[in-house]
C-alpha cells in the first residue's frame, strides 16, 4: 500500500516541480538579455572590433583604456572583442532582437545602412555636446557617421586610409628605386617582382597579393579603382549604378591583376581573411598589397623591411574624384538606442574620443586619431602617418553614404570574389564578364 502512494505523491511532486522549473527557466531565458542593467550604477557592455594584431592584443589595449575610464567614473565596462567575420551579423542580430551591447564599434562604411535601422542614438544636441561637440572631430572622419543631412548615428574612433605597402628588400633586389605612382608603373613593377626565385621553374614570388574572397576589400577596390576610372557605384540620387564604364574598368583592373597580368598568385583567390596579407610580405611570397593599417601586424612579426606609398593613380594628372587614392576608412562608435544605461554609454564614448585616449588607442593600432587635436599631435608625424593624413585630406572620399551601402558591399564584393574564383580555375575573364557579374549584383539590390 505504501509504495503506490509514495509513487503517486512523488510523481505528482515531480510533475509539478518540473512544470514550475521549466516555466521559470523559460521565463528566465526570455529575460536574461536584460540582466546586468539593474545592478548598474554602471555596468555597460562594449563590443569592440578587432583592431590589433590579435584579439588578445585588443583586450590588453582596450582593457587599459577601460581601466582608466572606470577609475575616473566608477562605471564598469564589460568588453567583448568581436572578430570582423562576425561583427556585421552580430550587430544585425542585436538590432533585430533589441538585445545588444550598450556601446559598439562599426566599420564606418556601414554607418548609413545601420543608421537606417533607427536602432542607434543620433549624435545631436545634448548627446553631441556630451562628447565635446561636432567641431572637435576631423570633418572628413565625422562625415562618415551617417547619411548626408541627417544627424550621424556613429562617431569616428579610428581613422584609416588605404595605402600601398611594399617589401623594401624585394624592391631593392629588383632594382626598383621608388614606389610606383601610376597604375602602369605599378603593373611594370609588379611584373618585375613576379618571379621564380629558386630555379624550379615555378613562380614563388608575386608582385602583389590580395584576399580574393574578402568581400569588403573587393568592394573597396571597386570603389577606389572605379573612381580612378571615372565611375561611381551610385548615381547622385542614390541609385545603384554598378555597370557604368568607369566601375567596370576599375573592377576589371582589379581582377586582371590575377588574370591577364598574372602578378597575383591564383591561390589568393581562396583567401577570405585580409589579416593574412601582411604575412605574405613577411614570408616573401609577395612584394606589395593594399591595406589600411597593417603596421601592428608587421610589428608583432618583428618585420621592418616595409614602406608605404599612396595607391597608384590610373592617370598621373588626375584631379577631383579621379584622383581618389582611398576611401575615408575607419572605425566608428555607436550607442545602442535600447541601452538601459545611455548616460554611462555616452560617457564611455566621450572617454574614447577624448584627446588622450585618441592618442593612446590610435598609436597602439597604427591608425590615425579622428579628433583634430590628437590628429595634429607630433606623435602622428611619422612619414607613414604624414602620407596617410595627406591622403585623407586630399585624395580620399567616403564610401557612398546611402542606406543600401551594406548590400552593395556584400553583392559587389561577392561578385568580384566569384570572378577571382573563375580566373583561379583557368578561365579567361573579360571586361564583358565583369560587366555581367556586376549587372547580376545590381539586380539583387533593393530599390533605394
Amino acid at each position: 500500500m505504501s509504495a503506490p502512494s509514495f509513487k503517486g505523491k512523488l510523481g505528482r511532486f515531480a510533475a509539478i516541480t518540473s512544470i514550475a522549473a521549466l516555466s521559470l527557466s523559460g521565463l528566465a531565458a526570455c529575460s536574461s538579455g536584460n540582466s546586468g542593467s539593474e545592478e548598474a550604477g554602471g555596468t555597460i557592455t562594449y563590443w569592440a572590433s578587432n583592431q590589433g594584431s590579435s584579439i588578445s592584443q585588443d583586450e590588453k589595449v582596450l582593457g587599459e583604456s577601460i581601466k582608466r575610464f572606470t577609475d575616473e567614473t566608477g562605471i564598469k565596462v564589460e568588453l567583448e572583442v568581436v572578430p570582423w567575420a562576425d561583427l556585421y551579423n552580430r550587430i544585425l542580430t542585436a538590432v533585430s532582437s533589441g538585445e545588444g551591447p550598450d556601446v559598439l564599434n562599426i566599420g564606418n562604411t556601414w554607418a548609413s545602412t545601420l543608421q537606417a535601422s533607427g536602432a542607434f542614438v543620433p549624435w545631436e544636441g545634448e548627446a553631441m555636446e556630451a562628447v565635446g561637440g561636432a567641431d572637435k572631430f576631423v570633418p572628413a572622419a565625422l562625415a562618415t557617421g551617417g547619411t548626408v543631412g541627417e544627424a550621424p548615428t556613429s562617431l569616428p574612433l579610428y581613422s584609416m586610409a588605404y595605402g600601398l605597402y611594399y617589401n623594401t628588400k624585394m624592391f631593392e633586389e629588383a632594382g626598383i628605386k621608388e614606389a610606383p605612382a601610376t597604375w602602369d608603373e605599378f603593373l611594370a613593377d609588379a611584373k618585375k617582382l613576379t618571379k621564380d626565385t629558386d630555379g624550379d621553374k615555378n613562380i614563388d614570388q608575386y608582385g602583389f597579393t590580395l584576399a580574393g574572397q574578402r568581400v569588403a576589400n573587393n568592394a573597396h577596390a571597386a570603389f577606389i579603382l572605379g573612381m580612378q576610372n571615372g565611375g561611381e557605384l551610385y548615381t547622385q540620387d542614390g541609385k545603384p549604378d554598378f555597370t557604368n564604364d568607369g566601375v567596370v574598368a576599375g573592377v576589371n583592373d582589379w581582377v586582371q591583376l590575377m588574370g591577364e597580368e598574372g602578378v597575383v598568385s591564383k591561390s589568393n583567390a581562396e583567401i577570405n581573411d585580409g589579416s593574412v596579407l601582411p604575412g605574405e610580405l613577411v614570408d616573401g611570397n609577395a612584394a606589395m598589397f593594399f591595406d589600411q593599417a597593417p603596421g601592428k601586424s608587421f610589428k608583432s612579426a618583428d618585420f621592418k623591411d616595409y614602406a608605404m606609398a599612396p595607391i597608384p593613380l590610373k592617370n598621373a594628372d588626375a584631379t577631383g574624384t579621379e584622383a581618389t587614392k582611398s576611401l575615408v576608412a575607419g572605425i566608428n562608435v555607436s550607442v545602442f538606442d535600447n541601452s538601459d544605461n545611455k548616460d554611462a554609454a555616452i560617457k564611455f564614448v566621450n572617454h574614447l574620443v577624448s584627446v588622450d585616449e585618441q592618442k593612446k588607442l590610435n598609436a597602439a593600432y597604427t591608425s590615425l586619431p579622428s579628433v583634430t587635436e590628437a590628429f595634429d599631435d607630433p606623435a602622428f608625424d611619422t612619414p607613414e602617418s604624414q602620407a596617410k593624413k595627406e591622403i585623407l585630406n586630399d585624395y580620399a572620399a567616403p564610401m557612398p553614404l546611402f542606406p543600401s551601402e551594406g548590400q552593395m558591399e556584400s553583392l559587389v564584393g561577392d561578385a568580384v570574389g566569384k570572378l577571382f574564383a573563375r580566373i583561379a580555375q583557368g578561365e579567361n575573364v573579360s571586361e564583358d564578364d565583369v560587366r555581367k557579374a556586376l549587372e547580376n549584383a545590381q539586380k539583387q539590390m533593393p530599390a533605394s
Partner: protein
Amino acid sequence: MSAPAQTPPRTSEPVPSRSAARAIKRSSIKRDRFFPYALSAPAAFLELLIHIIPMLLGVWIAFLSLTQFSIANWVKAPFVGLQNFITALDPNGPIGSQFFDALGRTFIFTLLVVGIAWSLGIFAAVLLVSKFRSNGFFRTLFLVPYALPSYVTTIAWAFMFNQRDGMVNRFLVDDLGILDEGPFWLLGERSFFVMVVVAVWQFWPFAFLMLLAALQSIPNEVYEAASLDGASLWKQFTRITLPMIKHANVVLLLMLGLWVFNQFDIPYLLFGPVSPEESTLISPLIYQQSFNNWNFGVGGALSVVLLLALLVVSAFYIRLVMPKGKSIDD
C-alpha cells in the same frame, strides 16, 4: 506510511462506503485525465516557445518587406503580400534562378550523401555485428566523426583542402606527383565534391550506429536456418537482413534526408558566408539573402517554400513506406 485519500482503490482491498467510493473514483478519474496533460505540458510549452512560435513568425516575415529600415521595429514592417514569393520564385530573376538551381543541387547533394552514407553504414554494420576480436575497437573508431564537434572537423577539412598549403594537394602534387599543379578544391565545381565528402564523413557513423542496433535485434537462428537451407550470404542479406531492418531504415533515411537537405554548417565552414556558385545549397542561400543582403522577407519566403516542399515530400514518404496502423516494431 498510510495511504492518502486520493490513492486509487484496489479491488483486493476492503471497499469503504459506496458514496465515498464514488467520490474517490470521480476524483481519481479527474486526476487521471489531468495527469498526462500535466506531464506533457512543460514539453508542449517549450515546443511552442522554441519551435512553433518562431516558425509562425518566420512565415509571417515572408509577407513583410523586412530590411534595415524596418528591422529594429519589425512588427511595423510594411506588409507586401506575396511580393517576396514572386521575387523568390521567378525563375528569370536573379534570386529565383539561384533558388531553383540551389533546389536541384540540394536534391542531388542529399541523394548522394544519404546514399553513400547509408551504404557505408550498412557495410560496416554487417561486418561488425558478428563478434570477433577488436570488434569494439572498430565500433568506437567508426563513431569518432559523429562524436567530434562538426565545427572542429569541418574546419580541419577546409585546411586539408586548401589549395596552396593543404594536405590533399601536398599529397597529390609533392608526394605522389600525380598532378603538376594543385587544383582548387574549395572553388568552382570541385567544391561540391568536397562538400559531399565532408558530409558523408560526418553522417555515415549515424547510419552505422542505427543500422548496427537494428541488426543486433535480428535473432541468429534465422540466419542459421537460412544457411542450413543453402541460402548464399547475398541472399541472406537481401531476403533476411534488409526486410528485418526495414522499419529502422525507413526512419533512418527520413532523418538523414532531412538533416542533409537542410545542411548549413558544412558549406558555411568550408566556404565562408558566400558559397561558390557551383555548391550553393538551399540553407546557405537563405542565409545569404537574409544576412548578407539584408532581405529578410525574401529569406523568409524561401524558407516557407522549403518548409512546404519538405513537408509534402515527408508526408508522401511516410504514407508510402511507413507501416500503416501497426506498431513500428512488428
